[in-house]
């Protein structure tokens, strides 16, 4: 009986240790890989950290898309109609990327306040506005009437 109880104790301790390690690793990995979301106004206010991967969202400003003529490099301005952020991207833009449309950009802020994009997301639906973007625009009072948030 004692041997059995001892064995059970070892099993329980082993399980608890395993779970603890798993939870610890998970939280560590989670903390290291969370991407926060910022609006152009928040970035202008200096709330966003430099050199960390994050997501920003807003509308692509009209006439702001500027392409390099012999590479794929492109710059454009993401705005929430209060403040702007310049974005630099060296990849192929998604099909639905267009001036005047909502986008979410994943990347990092460099020292000069320019946003170096790793990925640009434009929703595969014309009427769609990413929820974060809709909220950001609502905060500045610039949500266009016609666009229904994320429908």
């Amino acid at each position, binding site marked *: 009986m004692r041997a059995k109880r001892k064995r059970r104790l070892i099993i329980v301790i082993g399980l608890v240790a395993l779970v603890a390690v798993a939870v610890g690793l*998970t939280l560590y*990995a989670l903390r290291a890989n969370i*991407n926060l979301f910022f609006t152009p106004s928040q970035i202008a206010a200096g709330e966003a950290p430099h050199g960390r991967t994050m997501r920003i969202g807003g509308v692509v400003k009209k006439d702001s898309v500027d392409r390099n003529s012999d590479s794929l490099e492109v710059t454009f301005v993401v705005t929430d109609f209060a403040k702007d952020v310049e974005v630099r991207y060296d990849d192929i833009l998604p099909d639905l990327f267009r001036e005047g449309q909502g986008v979410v950009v994943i990347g990092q802020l460099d020292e000069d306040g320019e946003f170096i994009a790793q990925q640009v997301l434009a929703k*595969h639906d014309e009427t769609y506005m990413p929820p974060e973007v809709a909220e950001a625009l609502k905060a500045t009072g610039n949500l266009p009437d016609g666009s229904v948030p*994320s*429908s």
Partner: protein
Amino acid sequence: MLIRIFPELGHFALILAFAMAVLQAVVPLWGAATRRPLWMAFAQPMAWGQFTFLILSYLSLTASFALDDFSVAYVANNSNSLLPWYYKLSAVWGSHEGSVLLWVLILSGWSFAVSVFSRHLPRDMLARVLGVMGWISSGFLLFILLTSNPFERLLPDVPADGADLNPLLQDFGLIVHPPMLYMGYVGFSVVFAFAMAALLGGRLDSAWTRWARPWTNVAWAFLTVGIALGSWWAYYELGWGGWWFWDPVENASLLPWLAGTALIHSLAVTEKRGTFKNWTVLLAIFTFSLSLLGTFLVRSGVLTSVHAFANDPSRGTFILVLLGVTVGLSLAIFALRAPKVQSLAGFGWLSRDSLLLINNILLVVMTVTVLLGTIYPLLLDGLGLGKISVGPPYFNALFVPLTALLCLFMGLGPLARWKRMPGRELARRLAVSAIVAVVTAAVLPLFYGGSFSLGVTLGWLLALWLVLSLVRDVFDKTRHGRSDKARKGRTRLAGFRKLTLAYWGMVLGHLGLAVTIVGVAMVSHYNVERNVRLAPGGSVDVGGYQFAMTGLRERRGPNYTADTATIEVTRPGRSSFTMQPEKRFYVASGMPLSDVALRPGLFGDLYVALGEKLDNGDWSLRIQLKPFVRWLWLGALMMAAGGILAVIDRRYRRAPRRSAALQTHEPMPSRLVPPSPTEVTS
């Protein structure tokens, strides 16, 4: 006109189906509780009637699509008169309302199948199983009728034409991926219903697991194929060559798969050894709950993803309530009815039992990590603590080491015996496999890639370890029973014949995982990707191939216009071929879409996608070499085939007669004797 009333017929059939579902939910369970045979017998006709009316309802919606009845809002939003007929038919599940209808149709199909193939079950067991499925069905039918009626009319202002199906969905993938996935998701309701029925009936012995196992395997196989199809579809449709994004919606399908994988293994232990009983029931509950959670995540619109189309808050709330009720009720029943721990058979530290326990723990840990990464952002957002997203590095950092551990034990599992396995014998039998796997895996990247790569080595190591240990096992198993050394060849053949289909199913399933792992390792590390700017006449070298754009023309499709590029691909010493990537513009929706050109091969794909038209007539192009990418899906198909192979094992076909004999004495005794040796080896 008949055409005009199809939607009303469909709606009416839906309501009738709901009424039958409610009866199916209430009467048989009541009958089972009060032991009234007539009431219990109510379950089957109700299941059949429900299935019939749901088919009618579904066909009515399909007819509305086929006949371009744009007075139906759902048709008007998701179809167009120019849409090819096969997309019209699959557009039925192209958006929220129709896909929930498909969900319920499939659920009633599973109920129907259970009522047909399980007539040998004890009467009260069958009544309870169908009753539980009736509850699920009632919930979802109510959901459709209250929040997502696909038959809603747009009267009197009928649009002249439809808004068209989302171009991304106008693809073969739409025809096959959702039905397969739903078959899997919903199929787990059967094992859930069996577990609940066993709890309600107070018969938590091994019998229910034997009845539930084939159903679980089939559902799991469907889910496996569904996920693989989704990955394959995303790979060629989204135009950037990714095959798994750790997108919340993908995770939503992976969660029940992981839990389901744990479940099919723990069902095996419960059936063979009579242990893990409570655990198996819990897993059955969790697997189906995760299926529901997946449905909630996808259908509620809380996620930003290609899959999130509906966003009526009442829908999300409804499914969330449904999920809460299911989990809460089933756990409550579990807490009340689960037998006190009374495992009869113990097992040693090293045994198949203990290895399967480890398998279950690891799979559950994997499920929890994916679950955490998926819902953590939603929870934070819901609590107003800010908007975050969890990136793929999180999932990779946890998933890769856990998979490695899982594979380590997976190599041992099939060779270990139930109850007790001497460590020395296990080590002796696997030493050669281990050494060969380590050496080959270390050397292989040098030959293929020219340089050492830890990821590739790890991938091959795990895959070879799995394959070689299985080879060893087959070798050992076919050698047994050698009585006459002179007839060695023939006895080995006899040994092969002695192995059961269930065993071969296991072998095939495990080999499938090895193949998938090789695919993941190779394509993740040897993927070559270049985004270039090209004009007609220009060319570029990528990974030993030369891609030259020789032409660019415009083309008209049925409901789109397209720019088609002709790319000539040459490689020194090989014949050249052309690839034709396209950029389409869908007229009705005004949406652009790039149609990828693929040159598939068993050892690698060439992948060319047109990006965008640049200012001076140049095009941006995405060119990728994808080594071994097909192995991902090939492996998944092998896993699914393994699951099916195990189901058609003779054991399950023999089962009816055996349990028919048992049906006369009720209640069934739980297994008190340890399984016989013949059962252990099978």
